[in-house]
């Protein structure tokens, strides 16, 4: 029950963050070289799908670095308030391995600073997101929930109605809690899941999609 309440609070926080972004629409920047109409976009992360399957050991271990630690069905949707600012949400559902299932929800925004400054490369952006994920042990039925902020640096190129997006994600901090009895939440700086092996580990995300 306590876990459910915490999860609802987190979801409320996400909703609040998305609605608060609407105020930014008032600051729409007009750039004569770029479309000023608001746009929606939707896409998929094609590398997340093979990451959820039982591929060879090394592929299974390291492919998730290229899929942004997303597994299985991974979709994203976004909205441009103006050519410089987009909000985005991502959903990923898939098996991490034969033991665990992960459901992930991301929300945040990307800012095309170079477009705003009218310098090249104009498709480069920086952003900030929150990620909530549930790591579920199928056998013990225990949930491990995690919430973390992360920074993005990416490049989005539109070709007609299609686009591709290459992104670097760097997690900063992590807050975790669990459905396991006798546990209380924990938090820590988080630049890498395995700091003894590599102290800072950004992940990559590739997205292909459509704008409408």
């Amino acid at each position, binding site marked *: 029950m306590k876990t459910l309440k915490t999860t609802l609070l987190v979801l409320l926080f996400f909703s609040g963050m998305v609605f608060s972004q609407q105020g930014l629409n008032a600051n729409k920047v007009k750039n004569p070289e770029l479309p000023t109409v608001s746009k929606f976009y939707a896409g998929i992360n094609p590398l997340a799908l093979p990451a959820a399957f039982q591929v060879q050991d090394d592929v299974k271990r390291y492919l998730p670095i290229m899929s942004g630690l997303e597994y299985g069905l991974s979709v994203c949707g976004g909205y441009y308030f103006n050519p410089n600012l987009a909000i985005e949400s991502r959903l990923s559902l898939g098996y*991490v391995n034969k033991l665990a299932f992960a459901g992930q929800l991301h929300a945040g925004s990307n800012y095309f600073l170079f477009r705003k400054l009218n310098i090249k490369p104009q498709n480069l952006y920086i952003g900030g997101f929150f990620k909530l994920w549930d790591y579920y042990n199928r056998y013990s039925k225990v949930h491990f929930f995690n919430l973390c902020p992360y920074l993005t640096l990416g490049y989005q190129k539109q070709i007609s109605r299609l686009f591709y997006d290459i992104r670097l994600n760097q997690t900063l901090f992590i807050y975790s809690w669990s459905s*396991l009895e006798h546990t*209380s939440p924990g938090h820590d700086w988080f630049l890498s899941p395995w700091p003894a092996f590599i102290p800072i580990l950004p992940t990559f995300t590739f997205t292909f999609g459509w704008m409408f």
Partner: protein
Amino acid sequence: MRKKLITLPLLFIVLFIAACGDSDRIIQGLMDISGAPLEYDDSKATKHLNVASVCMSCSRDKQENLQKMTGILRRIKTEKPATRLVVFGETILGWYYDPVNPVAYQKNIAETIPGPATDKIGALADSLNMYIAFGLTERSDEGENFYNSLVLLNPKGEIEAVHSKVSLINWDEKSGFTPGKQKTVVTIDGIKTGMIICSDIQSVKLVRELVGDNIKIIIHALASDALEFRIDAVARQFNAWAIIANRCGDEEENSYSGNCYIADPAGTIRVGGQGIERVEYYRIGVYE
């Protein structure tokens, strides 16, 4: 154009199938060790067990390793007299893998269970009044099969259980080991405990069965080069306390990290470290 549209997905499917591996294995990755350490409150636990995890470097010579084990066990009794369970690493009586002649080497150090090594360590378990788990190369009575085994001796010096590694890796196969067939669950001072060796954590069948048995402790003997973790995936995998015993040092071209630790069921590492020979102690609290 249409032909291309059909060919491309087909090519992708063929490549994907080619990359697919063994279907009955759990391959741990970065996601399994992602998270902040949680606080697990065992202050009101109903049962306790004082445990020790030994990180040891190994010689090629079996007698030398047995002598070292004897010294460590006596030191544990002196340093922490209340210790009830001591866990050593995988095939601790010798090198884990001899790259020059792996089969001949393992045959040379192999023993039956019971045998001279279990007799010697069993006598110590009796005199020191503790459970002792250690890995060795086991030779079957007929002398035909060799197993990568973990033996548990009880405080009377008797053999309480023998677990043979189920999920063999490449080096085990090159060393001529035969896979074990089943899980091993024992009761130590009234606490249900599972025993596994190294890559047994990848066996879906074994993990499912041990979790189904509701074990409270998992004894995990291994020989690994993996560096220390922020959180432990093994404890989270079994929903149990994990006692991880590894080896350290170089064995020809192979190096072992000495990553030894004791983690609670939430995966929080209570004591641990890597690199040097040492003993990690902890008083485990279990809810029944």
